[in-house]
């Protein structure tokens, strides 16, 4: 699905009545998670070298600080730079007992929009699940995501502005987790900053800033019809 600068969808913030209803519906799901009635499973898509596994670990640590049981693991393959990789995160208020792969995620995080052409990123994604994509602008033909909720964040731009990585290899994972925290309403930016400080020894402050900027600038489009 090409991502261009056209704007056929209304961002969440300028919501009309139907989006307002949808915000309430998603908040109800988060409430079920918070009250221990449901588990949430998140799948991360990226390329080897993009810090996809690290993103899942940082988010796990931040959600743990927010009072959740967490379980994070990579797709168990032989990782190579540039090749598609996956990582998973389970969240629950109860101890997580299931130790098998994630097949029907509640939400997905796509660290590289070009992956969408090669990888079936929505495979098994539950209806109305969020798809967070690292992309500039807004989706031109979001039909591929019909029935799901869409959010875009220009994590590459944010990373470059903060001098994270190089022009060809920007470090975008910390921006992605900041944007995801906005979608879920949790964990707080303090908790994300704490996880970054614990695990990232190179330029933690810049990574925290990238995470905060992504939190502030992510476009939540909501459900795609």
């Amino acid at each position, binding site marked *: 699905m090409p991502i261009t600068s056209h704007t056929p969808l209304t961002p969440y913030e300028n919501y009309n009545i139907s989006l307002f209803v949808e915000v309430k519906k998603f908040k109800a799901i988060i409430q079920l998670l918070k009250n221990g009635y449901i588990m949430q499973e998140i799948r991360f898509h990226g390329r080897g070298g993009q810090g996809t596994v690290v993103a899942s670990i940082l988010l796990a640590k931040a959600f743990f600080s927010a009072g959740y049981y967490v*379980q994070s693991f990579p797709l168990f393959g032989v990782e190579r730079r540039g090749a598609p990789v996956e990582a998973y995160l389970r969240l629950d208020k109860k101890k997580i007992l299931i*130790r098998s792969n994630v097949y029907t995620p509640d939400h997905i995080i796509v660290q590289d929009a070009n992956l969408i052409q090669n990888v079936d990123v929505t495979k098994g994604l539950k209806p109305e699940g969020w798809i967070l994509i690292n992309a500039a602008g807004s989706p031109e033909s979001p039909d591929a995501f019909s029935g799901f909720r869409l959010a875009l964040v220009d994590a590459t731009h944010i990373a470059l502005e903060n001098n994270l990585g190089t022009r060809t290899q920007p470090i975008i994972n910390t921006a992605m987790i900041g944007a995801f925290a906005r979608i879920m309403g949790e964990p707080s930016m303090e908790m994300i900053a704490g996880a970054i400080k614990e695990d990232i020894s190179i330029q933690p402050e810049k990574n925290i800033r990238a995470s905060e900027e992504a939190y502030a600038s992510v476009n939540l489009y909501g459900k795609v019809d």
Partner: protein
Amino acid sequence: MKKVLEGSHAVSEAVRLARVQMISAYPITPQTHIVEAISAFCADGTMNARFLCVESEHSAMAAVIGAASSGVRAFTATSSHGLAYMHELLHWASGARLPIVMADVNRALGPGWNIWLDQTDSLSQRDTGWIQFYCEDGQEVLDTTLQAFRLAESVNLPVMVLLDAFFLSHTYEPVEVPDQEQVDQFLPPLSPRIQLDTANPFAIYQMVAPSAYMEMRYNIQLAMELVTSRFSEIEDEFETIFGRKHGPLEAVQCEDAEIILATAGTTASTCRHVITDLRKKGEKAGLLKLKMFRPYPTDQIRRHLGQAQKVAVIDRNFSFGASGIFAQEIKSALCNKDVRPPVFGYVAGLGGRDVTPQTLEEIYWQTKNNNIPKDESVWIGLNQELVESWSN
């Protein structure tokens, strides 16, 4: 302090807290993270220990045998082909009655070359005289590794702590990491039974004649027979200090269970979820988690399984020409009992193939709907087309 920790690092943290003095290892996926973290601890002074890099697993085991023979607390970690390569020296370590602790990440053996979960690597070392513990989560890995040193040093036998590849070794989850002070209280410095000393030279590991060899072997068995009671005492003490206990095996809702699923490692964790679901549907399902495999807790297995109508064993391992290894052992534990449940053996999840809650439920229903178990194992989820394309 509770931290989000990788399963591999739960081992590394336990080794640090146990104040291990000598580590020797050769890297192999998926064991690498364990020894990487330990070597970093040794390099930055967090651990006051010697990390000896060697050119093979055979040498790694030889090096820890040397260290333990000189009265030093020693550790190594490996996986799959690495463990197979150590095989000769595994016998040596137990025969020499050395309290070595090793972590093995359960990985398949090749060919087909495969880095994923399969428990055949360690189960095929069952006759080497090592104590074996199969763990289900990161907390159990950390706790069991600490207990392993106490136990090994108490009975003078080596201990293997087993972790499922990736599903445990590479999975991050909350783990309580105890304080050094608490661990020091639980695990005093090693007081070695033998200690090679250049100031006081003596010879060990000599030729033993037929007139004495059997007695040496019998003594190893006597030490193994001590393990169950010693481990129970060690766990009680551990619980007093740390407030946690896992047991040499665990029976979950077995008292009134009609069908008991028996399995080891991370599959036991998924099984807990499955039996809760089955109970909600009115099914009388139970779980027997198998943790201690050597010595084999025959009495306890008999007691927990004796009242069930059927037992279904899920093996992520296989003994060619026979069956799943845990199934064999459970059958042998039950065979001298007058009244015993039929044992259904299933082989699933070899070489990293996933065992999902659905897989386990399918096994439950197959067991419920059949009255007579097959002598051979039932293989779950085989792709018949592939089987036929490679048939002899």
